[in-house]
């Protein structure tokens, strides 16, 4: 019944960065399930291959693996050159850092902003400039409630990088609307991924934090992937420049 389901990604070609683990990996799985053809990108070829091997392949769908470290400009350029014009891009690569303000020196900001902000905006800039985003394409940034909807002690570096990304989303949305390209971001609360188990806080502290969530659990990667699927689909064709909070109610 192709064409009748506005939520289907059938026939769409989508680039997903940070696809080797966590939310990015799940978005890749869900998009493939919804019949998209994918370029999965990340730094680690083995984990990326594992994602690729896990993707469902519907008839007419083709998935490709593109290894790239987005903090290296030559690798970003190669990535942009390697993709055919896209119907969608989901940018999921990101790193975390927990640090009180008094230890948040400029080099810490630079390290996190490089991955969470500069490399994200740079990739989208180059895709747009090289006309690798088709008219009516959809761009989705993986943002966070941190820095905008939630201010927690120790999260200044991560939070400000995500706040900057939220702001950039809106500028891209406005300027890219000339080609009817939509740009949105998703702001998850804490989601069960390797990123939250870095050990800076103990598992007990994480559990106590989880119980603060009105819906009594952290997010699952699927909770976020379904929003990405919606934003990539034709169902969201009048949605642009927005930040979508998915957080189990913690920001209420």
């Amino acid at each position: 019944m192709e064409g009748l389901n506005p939520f289907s990604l059938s026939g769409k070609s989508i680039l997903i960065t940070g696809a080797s683990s966590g939310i990015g990996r799940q978005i890749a799985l869900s998009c493939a399930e919804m019949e998209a053809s994918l370029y999965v990108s990340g730094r680690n070829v083995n984990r990326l291959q594992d994602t690729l091997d896990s993707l469902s392949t519907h008839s007419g769908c083709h998935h490709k693996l593109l290894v790239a470290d987005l903090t290296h400009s030559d690798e970003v350029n190669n990535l942009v050159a390697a993709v055919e014009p896209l119907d969608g891009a989901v940018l999921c690569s990101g790193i975390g850092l927990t640090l009180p303000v008094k230890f948040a020196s400029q080099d810490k900001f630079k390290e996190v902003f490089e991955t969470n902000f500069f490399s994200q905006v740079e990739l989208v800039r180059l895709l747009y400039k090289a006309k690798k985003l088709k008219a009516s394409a959809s761009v989705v940034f993986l943002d966070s409630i941190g820095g905008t909807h939630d201010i927690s002690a120790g999260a200044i570096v991560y939070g400000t990088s995500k706040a900057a990304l939220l702001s950039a989303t809106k500028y891209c949305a406005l300027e890219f609307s000339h080609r009817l390209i939509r740009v949105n971001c998703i702001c998850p609360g804490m989601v069960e991924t390797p990123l939250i188990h870095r050990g800076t806080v103990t598992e007990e502290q994480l559990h106590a934090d989880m119980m603060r969530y009105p819906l009594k659990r952290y997010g699952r990667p699927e909770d976020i992937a379904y929003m990405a699927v919606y934003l990539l689909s034709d169902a969201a064709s009048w949605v642009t420049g927005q930040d979508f909070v998915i957080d189990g109610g913690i920001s209420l």
Partner: protein
Amino acid sequence: MELEKFIENFAEQFDETDASEITASTNYHDLEEWSSLVALSVIAMVDEEYDVTLKGDDIRNSKTVEDLFNLVSSRL
């Protein structure tokens, strides 16, 4: 690395607790001002001063300032 200097660096992470209250044998979990934010500050201080990465579990499992000193020393 010196224990005395470590204690001094440790005590600097507190605002209301006088440095004289913090000695090698102080069980820091019992200090009134001890909090998750102070714990994060200690982790950050150890990273900055000694280039050693402590985990939340290290802070939880150590009892006294000297325990933590020994742990950091063992990872230098």
